[in-house]
């Protein structure tokens, strides 16, 4: 008997429970290219609606850039569509190695290894470099893909309170008997938009002879004066032992990721990391696109500068309107609503006003921390941001939350 009624009932009950908890995720179908202006079908079957996208990771506005598309076309023509192989059998082209070298140069590290995604990089790296004699000490808010990588690794694991350096130091002392110690953090935290204190973390790692791991997925390409990432912003270029990042966000947004850092670590991954060894190579068309992105970014800093200006403008606009924001200075600007249903209602009303921004709530963020996470792009023009601010103002008034404190919003809507 294959999919019996008993089996089906189990799954249906699980799915119903998700619906009843109000956290069933429905996808919205986009009929256009990824950009500031998109055309969306939502709910399914509805006519197309033109909206402004305020929730893409398209930080540099390169996802549909004509030069990137052109380079991808050329890569498709010269290197073909697929490789039908993992890297170590017959899946490594000259351009794969070229991209690894270019990322090494861009990030200021010793070597780089590509992965099918940054999720795969995070899932594979710890197991490849640590054993049960070692310890991993991670920030409590690291990305889910890092949590999975930690789970797959036999080394001991401990956590420290978010960005709390005293707590981290106490953990480094507690685990001083371990052979290898790795401190693990996101560069920019994806839900809150704050940065890890990498200067202090480097100092602590040096003091206690620990390695430092940074996932810079929400930074590579635009954080720091020339967009190298969080390590540039904090003046610690060359001092991060392991950086992971993605090509699926600012760097063109297609797919793929990498581990970049000390050459022995990279070589360990090439020999041992399971998602590298047992999953197909990145498609040549994607590699060609990312190479063009790096050309564009190495030429000048126009795009990251515009992104910074846009982000400032947006943050000031929302602050003046009277919203409660998470503090920070990155393009991730969370508008705090605290109550899960309120975040859903506000998101839906914004959509009706032509603004696409998604509400996040438990378990993606902690209970009572529901929010609309807005993300700014260099692809936004001031008129986009002004229109979005107008909509946020209107909806903020509707729910009477403008100028209200966290406490007041919680009193009105509950947690």
């Amino acid at each position, binding site marked *: 008997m294959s999919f019996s009624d008993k089996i089906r009932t189990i799954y249906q009950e699980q799915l119903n429970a998700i619906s009843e908890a109000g956290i069933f995720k429905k996808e919205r179908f986009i009929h256009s290219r990824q950009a500031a202006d998109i055309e969306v079908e939502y709910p399914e079957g509805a006519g197309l609606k033109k909206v402004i996208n305020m929730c893409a990771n398209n930080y540099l506005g390169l996802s549909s850039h004509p030069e990137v598309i052109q380079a991808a076309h050329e890569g498709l023509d010269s290197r073909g569509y697929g490789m039908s192989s993992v890297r170590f059998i017959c899946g490594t082209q000259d351009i794969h190695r070229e991209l690894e070298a270019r990322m090494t140069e861009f990030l200021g590290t010793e070597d780089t290894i590509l992965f099918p995604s940054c999720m795969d990089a995070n899932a594979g790296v710890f197991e490849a470099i640590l054993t049960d004699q070692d310890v991993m000490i991670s920030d*409590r808010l690291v990305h889910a893909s890092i949590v999975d990588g*930690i789970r797959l690794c036999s080394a001991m*694991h*401990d*956590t420290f309170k978010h960005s709390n350096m005293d707590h981290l130091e106490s*953990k480094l002392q*507690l*685990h001083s008997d371990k052979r290898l110690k790795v401190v693990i953090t996101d560069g920019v935290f994806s839900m809150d938009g704050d940065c890890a204190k990498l200067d202090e973390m480097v100092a602590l790692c040096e003091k206690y002879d620990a390695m430092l791991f940074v996932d810079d997925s929400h930074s590579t390409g635009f954080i720091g004066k020339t967009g190298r990432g969080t390590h540039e912003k904090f003046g610690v270029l060359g001092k991060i032992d392991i950086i992971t990042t993605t090509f699926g966000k600012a760097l063109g947004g297609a797919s793929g990721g990498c581990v970049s850092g000390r050459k022995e670590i990279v070589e360990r991954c090439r020999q041992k990391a399971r998602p590298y060894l047992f999953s197909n190579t990145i498609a040549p068309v994607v590699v060609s696109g990312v190479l063009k992105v790096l050309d564009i970014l190495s030429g000048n800093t126009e795009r990251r500068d515009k992104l910074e200006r846009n982000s400032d403008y947006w943050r000031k606009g929302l602050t003046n309107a009277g919203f409660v924001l998470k503090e920070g200075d990155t393009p991730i600007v969370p508008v705090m609503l605290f109550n899960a249903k309120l975040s859903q209602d506000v998101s839906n009303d914004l959509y009706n006003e032509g603004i696409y921004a998604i509400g996040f709530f438990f378990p993606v963020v902690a209970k009572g921390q529901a929010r609309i996470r807005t993300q700014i792009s260099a692809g936004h023009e001031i008129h986009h941001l002004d229109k979005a601010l107008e909509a946020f103002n209107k909806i903020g008034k509707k729910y009477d939350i403008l100028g209200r404190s966290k406490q007041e919003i919680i009193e009105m809507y509950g947690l």
Partner: protein
Amino acid sequence: MSEEMKDIVLEYVIEEYLEDEDEEISYDTPLISGGIVDSFSMVSLKRFLENRYNISIPDDLATPEAFDTVTKITVLVDGFLK
């Protein structure tokens, strides 16, 4: 079972796991099933107990159930001290 040990464990849990805004907890507040300590972060508590009381708790006894309240933790540690 010593009241002193209960207080030491409770104080550690508050210091280690609670954020400033969190509410107070008691000896019998469910820590792991109550979502205060995620099972992922439990290892620091285990290490703390081992160092402080000079014992070694085998992994198969360091279960989320055995670590769920301060009282239960104290019972577990007490067993090793005898």
